[in-house]
């Protein structure tokens, strides 16, 4: 695997991140991310074959809540921060494709 991250990869990552970057930004980030990714390769100096990944530093499991209803936000409060709304809905430009993942 290359130690660098090329411009094409940066474009792909920008798309996945939903960031509409200018050419100038893409150039700048290509360089900066390359040097950071190159630095991160340092991790490969370590043998981790028999090491478990540590996602949680806590020894905690089974944290549940009872199935008891709690007050929801009043609709007006829920929508108070909406950039745009129509009736009691959040309003966005028309979704033409069905590109949901679910």
């Amino acid at each position: 695997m290359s130690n660098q991250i090329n411009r094409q990869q940066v474009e792909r990552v920008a798309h996945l991140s939903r960031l509409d970057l200018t050419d100038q930004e893409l150039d700048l980030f290509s360089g900066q991310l390359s040097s950071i990714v190159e630095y991160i390769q340092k991790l490969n100096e370590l043998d981790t074959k028999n090491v478990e990944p540590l996602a949680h530093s806590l020894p905690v499991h089974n944290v549940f809540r009872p199935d008891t209803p709690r007050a929801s936000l009043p609709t007006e409060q829920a929508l108070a921060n909406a950039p745009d709304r129509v009736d009691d809905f959040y309003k966005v430009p028309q979704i033409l494709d069905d590109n949901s993942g679910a």
Partner: protein
Amino acid sequence: MAAKVDYKVIVGLEIHVHLAAKTKMFCGCELAYGGTPNSRTCPVCIGMPGSLPVMNKHAYECAVLTAMALNCSIARFTKWDRKSYYYPDLPKNYQISQYDLPLSENGFIEIPLEDGSIKRVGIIRAHLEEDAGKNNHELGSFSAIDLNRAGAPLLEIVTAPDMNHPAEVRQMAQELQRIVRYLGVSEGDMQKGHMRFEPNVNLHIYKDGQTYKTPICEIKNLNSFRAIERSVAYEIQRQLEEFLETGKTMQMGNKRTYGWDDVNQMTVLQREKEEAHDYRYFPEPDLVPVEMDDVWFEQIRSRLGELPLQKQKRFVTDYGLSDYDAAVVTGDKATADYFDAVVKAGAEPKRACNLITQIGQKLANQSNTSVDQLDISPQNLAKLAQMADKGLISATAAASIYAKMPGTDTNPEDIAKAENLIQTSDTGAIEALVNEVLAENAEAVQDIITNSKKAQKAQGFLTGQVIKKSKGKANPKVVTELLAKRLSELAPKE
């Protein structure tokens, strides 16, 4: 169309079941259908910054219970993952789901087919996740988002591609509905979106000694069992024609998505090419893992009870019901259990089944309730069944007595007496009536004696006349016997 070709239909299902909890998967907002948009949301399900999810224990247990009913192996350690994709109905732009350690795997479901045989369909996995909100496109040239559904607990079930006929796909869906309703883990109402089925369909076409696999198509927007069956049937035909025209076969990334158009009864292409999804799954850092010990496991398993197909089979073997009757009476758990109680109270099973499914069901529908909620004790219904069996009352009388029982749970004998519905089997009295009827209907008697075309009809007519004269109280069996005897006496000797 071109020459006939041999092919095999391959269908797998991706199923989403809404679990019947009071609250959402990760917050305390109430779960309900309909209502004012965005009236059941909070910082957690709106995905506001700083909010954090906390697992709903009941929903988790419902998921495990369902997985147990689907014969899955239950993971003793499971965790949560984030699945990333951007869509306006997904407020965090990631869905909390389970990726590499789902709560259950490797099960199967048994489906009773119409020919009485049982088909086994493999379950690859069943995992919990949160539902998205709803995008409404009908209000104008924009989309309107309602997050009331966002965060609802959803069990995703993925079956093996084991179904080979449109009817099997429908039956699989119906059996799953019956199971989740038996378990009480979901209302299972397809119209309300409690259950969503997405068939993945393709064909294996055998041509010139080779097997060709058509591209897999996923069908969405199915909101009835009929739509499931019809859409699969439509898709089979469409794929066959497409293959014969274009020769197109399955390749990486050419899976397509079709939507079912219920008005025009056809599938419509929604997405040509599966966008190279990169969901970037990783462990959800805001939730901790779930570990299940034996005590908890057994606690949940003890709620399993007898599953519908088990019950159905028992009613056939132990009670001698036909496959059809057993399927009807086990359609829902309350009816099946009520039936079982009536039989255990002494009713003959076939009689009890007929009373419940033919008369009880109608009475229940009229008062918008279920058979077991008519306030008729199994003992009294069993008594009614026994009275009918012994010939104390006619079938018609049984129906009218049943209709008078709801709410009061009166002893059916009392009703029969009060309404003067007890049948007479007094042969002397009936014989007198028979003689009267024979005298009054010489033409019909003649038809029978001469064994004309009308003989059978005439015999029925005469029976009816005798019962009518008795005001419905003559036991039809006795009437038929006496009538036959008298008629044979009248017939000319050879």
